[in-house]
């Protein structure tokens, strides 16, 4: 059996469209923002990952990231510390394409999930801004609502 912690995205950089980079940075604590209520995400990759999840949840079509001018936020080696994320991304790729063999093509998977991230980023930014409270509470309420819709 293969090594459980095999990270196929090890050598792939994670990019976001330039137009969203500032927001990703602003709402992430690694962007130099220490006020958690204003910058709810510990790292930029967490913002990016949540955008993927939200897009998948909302069944959005992945955007073609190649059409965007992008900026790297981090390389895929970051997932080495969170193997569940590797598995999740692979499952998203399988779930969205219905093709199990996609797992052998990391770049294709990354293109797909990055496309989802591009689709999800404006949604998450909207969640952060929508509301009268600080971004962390706006986002929390939005996620809460999103999850409850399923529960209902």
């Amino acid at each position, binding site marked *: *059996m*293969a*090594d*459980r912690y*095999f990270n*196929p995205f090890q050598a792939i950089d994670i990019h976001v469209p330039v137009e969203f980079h500032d927001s990703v940075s602003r709402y992430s*604590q690694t962007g130099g923002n220490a006020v*958690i*209520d204003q910058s*709810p*995400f*510990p*790292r930029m990759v*967490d*913002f990016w*990952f*949540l955008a993927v*999840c*939200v897009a*998948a*949840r909302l*069944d959005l079509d992945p955007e073609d990231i190649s059409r965007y001018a992008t900026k790297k936020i981090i390389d895929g080696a970051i997932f080495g510390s969170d*193997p*569940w*994320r590797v*598995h*999740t991304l*692979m*499952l*998203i*790729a*399988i*779930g*969205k394409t*219905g093709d*199990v*063999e996609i*797992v*052998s093509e990391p770049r294709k998977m990354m293109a797909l999930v990055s496309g989802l991230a591009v689709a999800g980023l404006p949604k998450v930014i909207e969640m952060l801004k929508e509301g009268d409270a600080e971004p*962390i509470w706006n*986002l*929390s309420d939005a*996620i*809460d609502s*999103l*999850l*409850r819709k*399923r*529960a209902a």
Partner: protein
Amino acid sequence: MKLLCAEFQNFRLLRDLELRFSVDPHKKLTVIRAANESGKTTILHALQWALYGDAALPGKGDGFRLHPIDWSAPDGKRVPITAMVEFELTTYRQIGGELREARRRYRIVRAAFEEVDATARRTASTMRLFALNDSGASPIESPEAFVNDELPPELREVFFTDGDRALSFIEADVAQSTKRERVQRAIRSLLGLGVIEQAMKHVQKAAADVNRKAKQVGANAELRNIASRLEEIDKESGKFEAALADAKQQFAAFDEKVEETDRKISAALQKGDKEKLRKDLEHAKREIKQLDDQLAAANKEHSALFRNREVATELLAPVLRRAYDKLEELHDQGKIPNTTIPVLQNRLTAEICICGEPLVPGEPDCDERRAHIQKLIDDSLRADEIQEIITDLYYGAKPLPTDGNSWLDEYKKIVERRDGLKALRDDGGRKFRALEIELDALPDTDVQGLREARRQYKEQRDRHLSKSSSIETQLLSLRREREGLNVEFERLLREQKKGARILAELEVTQDVSRVLQSAYDRITKEELRKVSDLMNRIFLEMIGADPEQGAIIRRAEISAEFDIKVHGPNDRTLNPDRDLNGASRRALTLAFILALTKVSEVEAPNVIDTPLGMTSGYVKRSLLRTAIRESAQLILFLTHDEIAGCEEIIDDAAGAICTLTNPTHYPKMLLNDPGSAERKVLRCSCTHRNDCPQCQRRTDSDIRPEMAS
């Protein structure tokens, strides 16, 4: 002594005032009705100044202006101030076995000049005393001594007092020793204990003289030695007694300091203990820091909600389920895990198929089957890389898909935690700010410093107490030694030729000393008991109908230590100044003053300013009725409010009534213009039941708001 009349000129508000007091034994009460600021307290001061001089004025007269404040310069820059008091003394003489009463009248006049400037310098006052008779006035020499005999200065507070000052015998704001000393001084003076003490000292001195004579009577060395030793003992005793008096005085002084510091600490603590506030502030700061740390941790946990597995898996649940179903399908097809290749290779090696057919190489059927199996192995090898990943994914991602609500549960917990901590933090912040404001508002009273000062005063006080005890023990020892030596001294004296006369002298001094000691003991015990009992009776009668106080007060007494004590149920001691209401406190002190005056059998006036303040209803009437009955001459300064409800008692008991008015009260409080713009007291003969145009006052409903302002 009874006061007959008084006249005052230019004594503050009393520019020109004449008062007459009742001396009718059946109408002992004089009422001087006056509203506030109408000269009541000034008259009290003026009467005492007339009798005792500047020493009787507030602050012993130092800086106490006497001339009217609105004295106009054209009237002169030196103001002549005079106070005249006429009084009557009753003396008794035995004539032919019959006790005859004689009344003599005297006039005392005191005068001084005061400069009209900021310093208000005053010349030393001159006092003259005249005996009055039908033919005129005869001056009497040494008027001070005369007054001191009739109205001892120590008793000034007993004869001339106001309702509030009377409380000085029980007030809580002074040390126990001070109150005790005030009570003791009043009792000693009025009961003549001072005279007896002087006599005892005199007899002791006489005994010492006798002792010295004894040393010279003969050649008996032992007698001389004993006489010398007795002389030494007397000298030592004198020194010890002086040291004891000094130690007691020092003790009282430091006791007073301790009390005073306690009051300062108490006052500072009422506003707030700065040191304690600082500690509270530090504590609040630490609490805030802890809460901030907890809040930061909670914020981090909140933030971690957006990177944890639950948020992803719960959001992605539909997608993940779909993907995982695919993997399950492969698993069900046996493609996961990938175990085909080893099994097929094993079959080729074993040359027998799973189905039981032979797989022997070289045989046509077998070769065909072997080629098929080999193709299956080759196909599997091509898919192996993918299958390996999928297998890994299948097993690795098995726990991922979830339909749970753990993120929502976790989020709810964090919201509660953050909200709870935020509320605590807000409270802590408010508390901190409030403490800061409180601390800033505090005066710079150094409570710690005061406590330290108190500790030192207490140490000093206790040291003097200890010294007193030590000296008392030494004195006792000397007394015992003296007694022993006395016995031997008398025996030896009897053996001497000239000893009999000296012995007789000695016996006389000892007898007189015993008589004086006995008188002293009797007065301090019996007379004190009499004052105590009478005070108790008067007091209980005064407060008798007050159900509130009646429930807690059982009796009052003056202890052997000269403390005025009040006892409640089960003989529990009550603090007169704290456990009694205002009316009862007044009643207690007036009862003490009246009892003391009565037991001493000194005929003296009781001049009391506003005695009925803080009293009402039955207690007020009872207090007035009892005071009239127990006093030889009662002169009361009463406000209109104090008179209200007591009119009938005054009808019956008052032999003289007048009303004083301050014209500057027009128009706010007086109905009519008295025609004088000067600040001075005007007298009219209106009683407690009527008014004249001069004294008629506005009622509350008459006073318009603009007048009141």
